[in-house]
């Protein structure tokens, strides 16, 4: 590989790493949102049948 | 009971258990010797191994076998439900830490009494290590390893994956100790005397001191959760 290709590879790695982390965080965020929805529906049920 | 008396009480109790059952000592010595044999075979038949590589082999054997003893010292208390009893008793957690660390230190020293001669028999044809330098070196590593190991064994014992977790936690922390030990031992195998390896011994002593203090302070927090 030519020298400059390594430079490109390094920057690609940095961006891929950061993007990968953001994707992982957003995945966990969706899990939180899902569990929140489940909780909200359970609260509604409890209100209907005291 | 003052601190010193507490420590001696706990230390003697654990030592009595060890001497009676000898399970840890035998396991450590046996496993260490086994590792050395495996490494001897793995090194191939080429014969000539450098002093520093020999040092590496010795330390792999000692450190890997020591984790066996380390893990048991605390896990045994937990298995027998003794941890709560120890905490409720008037014995201070700091005394518990010091006593356990001393037990680990003693176990390591005893296993090395077996392992070092075995090592010299297997590998040490051309080696003439200075006994004083080697003893001080081993003592310092034992100190650091047992101090850090005792603290971390409290953490590992609190999880369900005790045996697996202790090496994962302990070895990264002790990597600097390994680096220094291998370099110093390599020098000793090459014939250096004590004053020549002081450069490596000082950081090792610092490591031991840092983790003795840290363990003394942090152990109480960790053990209360076990």
């Amino acid at each position, binding site marked *: 590989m030519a020298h400059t290709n*390594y430079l490109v590879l390094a920057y690609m790695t940095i961006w891929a790493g950061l993007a990968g982390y953001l994707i992982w965080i957003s995945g966990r965020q969706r899990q939180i949102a899902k569990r929140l929805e489940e909780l909200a529906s359970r609260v509604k049920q409890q209100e209907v049948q005291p | 009971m003052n601190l010193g008396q507490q420590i001696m009480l706990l230390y003697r109790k654990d030592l009595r258990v060890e001497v009676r059952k000898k399970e840890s000592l035998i396991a450590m010595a046996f496993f260490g010797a086994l590792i050395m044999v495996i490494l001897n075979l793995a090194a191939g038949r080429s014969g000539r191994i450098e002093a520093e590589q020999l040092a590496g082999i010795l330390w792999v054997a000692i450190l890997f076998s020591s984790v066996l003893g380390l893990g048991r010292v605390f896990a045994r208390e937990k298995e027998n439900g003794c941890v709560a009893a120890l905490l409720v008793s008037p014995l201070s957690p700091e005394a518990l830490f010091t006593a356990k660390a001393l037990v680990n230190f003693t176990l390591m020293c005893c296993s090395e009494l077996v392992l070092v001669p075995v090592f010299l028999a297997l590998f040490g044809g051309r080696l003439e290590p200075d006994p004083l330098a080697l003893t001080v070196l081993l003592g310092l590593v034992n100190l650091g390893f047992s101090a850090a190991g005792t603290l971390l064994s409290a953490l590992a014992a609190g999880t369900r994956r005790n045996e697996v977790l202790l090496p994962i936690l302990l070895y990264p922390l002790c990597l600097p100790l390994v680096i220094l030990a291998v370099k110093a031992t390599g020098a000793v195998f090459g014939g250096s005397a004590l004053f020549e390896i002081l450069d490596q011994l000082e950081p090792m002593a610092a490591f031991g001191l840092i983790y003795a203090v840290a363990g003394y302070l942090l152990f109480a927090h960790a053990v209360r*959760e076990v």
Partner: protein
Amino acid sequence: MLKRYDPFALLALFALPAAAAMVFFYAPLEETMGLVQKIFYFHLGLAAAAFLSFFVACIAGVFYLVRRQRVWDERGAAAIEVGVLFTTLVLLTGSIWGRPIWNTWWTWDPRLTTSLILWFIFTACLILRGAVEQEAKRAVFSAVMAIAGFIDVPVVFLSARLWRSIHPTVIRSEGIALEPAMLATLAACVAAMLILWAALFRLRCGMQRQENTLLDLQQQLSR
């Protein structure tokens, strides 16, 4: 706009492109290494941010043990995780930089060695966190491990330097004399990485807080 968006994320929006521009348009070309040397600016920036992260994790551990407030465990968890991410990137970029220069994918350069050991220590922290289910126990254990891990750093650095002296074939990366323009670019990159770190840290803290609140709600409802 400041209320809706995290200020550090906004800052990062400007700081990161600015730093990149400085690296490519302002910093002079290095003689011996050429273009590849430009990896160095962000590599060092990432290392600075990673180090800060582990320092924060240690401090958060101390505060948690002393005060036992959940917020400190949240910060500790975020700091360890982001720190491991940045350290991974430091190792990868360092390795990629080393390949064309020294013709090897790995070198026991003291900075890389220190980063590698730190990576192992704090990844072990993450594994420890994953192995404990109860929140309070996990927080205490994580705090103890983060503190134990960080106090190792001085010895790690000393021993890494000692190790390097055995391998004189490794070209010292600190041997580059830094011109003022390079220094300014380096400062800009370190600042940009620190801002990025702060943005990610706050994001992760917020997420941890949400998860904890959710757990509280679940417990309350199941009663």
